[in-house]
């Protein structure tokens, strides 16, 4: 049942609707609802948002309503609907669909051709363009080329974990190496790195065997 967070005027066409939000209908694309009956009774008329032409009880929202609808346009405003306006739901049956099997051409038999929305729908085949499917992956075409030379392709690479093991082992290895040098014996101060290196080099390079 609808949550009672809004109110409708009963019956008839209403110019204004109060804005509402009904969580039941917050995801119109996931619902498939039948098209409302369009017929001569509706032809050429303005239509009001939602409730007036549907078979619903007063106070209950129309299944064809959508949270994305702009309820600000009264019935007479058909001709100055803004170009970027949202598609009027009653016209298409429900918020995302043309209705069952209906196509744009079929469902607007009585409308003036110079409504800007017509052009828009002619080239925009998918009326779900404002519904975002967060889980849909991008097509594979974008995938190639993301990972450059030298980078890891592993998902999770590039995270900023601290590499404890590498740091710890590097410290241990450096310390052990210094201990090796000390144990090997050096005449000068073992803590002086420069003299250490000089000592090592002199010990090794002086005695280089001659290769022929």
């Amino acid at each position, binding site marked *: 049942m609808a949550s009672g967070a809004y109110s409708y005027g009963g019956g008839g066409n209403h110019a204004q609707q109060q804005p509402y939000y009904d969580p039941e209908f917050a995801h119109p694309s996931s619902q498939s609802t039948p098209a409302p009956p369009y017929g001569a009774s509706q032809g050429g008329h303005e239509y009001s948002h939602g409730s007036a032409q549907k078979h619903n009880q007063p106070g209950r929202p129309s299944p064809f309503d959508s949270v994305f609808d702009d309820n600000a346009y009264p019935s007479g405003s058909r001709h100055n609907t803004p170009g970027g306006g949202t598609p009027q739901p009653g016209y298409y049956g429900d918020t995302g669909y043309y209705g069952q099997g209906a196509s744009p051409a079929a469902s607007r038999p009585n409308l003036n051709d110079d409504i800007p929305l017509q052009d828009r729908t002619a080239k925009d085949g998918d009326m779900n363009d404002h519904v975002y499917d967060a889980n849909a992956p991008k097509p594979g075409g974008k995938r190639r080329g993301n*990972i450059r*030379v030298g980078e890891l392709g592993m998902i999770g690479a590039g995270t900023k974990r601290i590499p404890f093991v590498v740091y710890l082992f590097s410290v241990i290895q450096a310390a052990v190496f210094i201990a090796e040098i000390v144990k*090997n014996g050096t005449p000068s101060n073992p803590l002086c790195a420069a003299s250490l290196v000089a000592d090592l080099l002199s010990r090794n390079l002086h005695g280089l065997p001659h290769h022929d």
Partner: protein
Amino acid sequence: MIKPQFNPMIGPSTQVLINMGARYAPCMHNIKAIQGATADRPILFLCPNATTNTAICPLSTLCGFGGVPDPIFDGNADQTPAPDQWFRFIIPIFMHAGIIHIGFNLLLQLTVAKEMEQAIGSIRFFLVYMSAGIFGFVMGGNWAAPGIASTGASGSLFGIIALTLLDLLYSWSERRSPVKDLMFIILDMVIAFVLGLLPGLDNYSHIGGFLMGLALGICVLHSPNSLRRRLDEGSAYSAVHGGQGLGPPFFKDPIGFFKGRKPLWWAWWIIRVAVLIGIIVVFVVLLKNFYADRSTCEWCKYLSCLPIKDWCDLGVIKDPNAH
């Protein structure tokens, strides 16, 4: 560094390295040429602080760490108790033979290995690093010349390089230039292998570490990216799993972990288990060979030396050389 023999790595003498824990087979098991020698032609060892070829000490002094049973040179190669400093498979991971040696290894470790650890996490990294390193020394213990003292983290680092190769293969289609990446890795391996043929460098560490890294990588890394996409799995090694295809974490729900899984998921896990069993088997076989069977392979040393001058004689225990 040059006494009693020149150390090309610019570092301490071999005897110091042995005394501090290098992989050195005479301290780890009976060797036919040593324990099997007779008293009139004993094998002699240099002291840890030797600077000449005449400073002779018992094996026990050279080995250090509380000593080993000295060979009694009665011709019996199966002397008991035998030397058994098993930790010489592990300690040398943290030792290096010289400045050049530690310089190259730390460079690799602080770049490639650091990134790898950031990618896969510390536990997996530690597992691969230590296993690859130990396995490299186990291989060397079995097949390198017995008198060679071996140190270095190269085996471990080669295991990590194997992980980068696996990562490349798993994400091949997402790479900008996968062939170039592959060329880099191959070049790296070739250079290291060639360098390993020089005297003083133990190629068995490299080879063994690389093989173990490949095998363990299959076990502990995520599945190939193409497989992950097909299984629609989560994308991180973190504890919080994403993706619709993942089940509950294993420890929270061991049975549920296996429910509803696709055949490909099972196939990859079976491969992983098979490889893991293979690793354990190979480890056991090689250790058994080292301690019990001790079958040797005469040509194996050529994987780690070039038959130039007397390079391949390095480490071969001959009498009456004072090693």
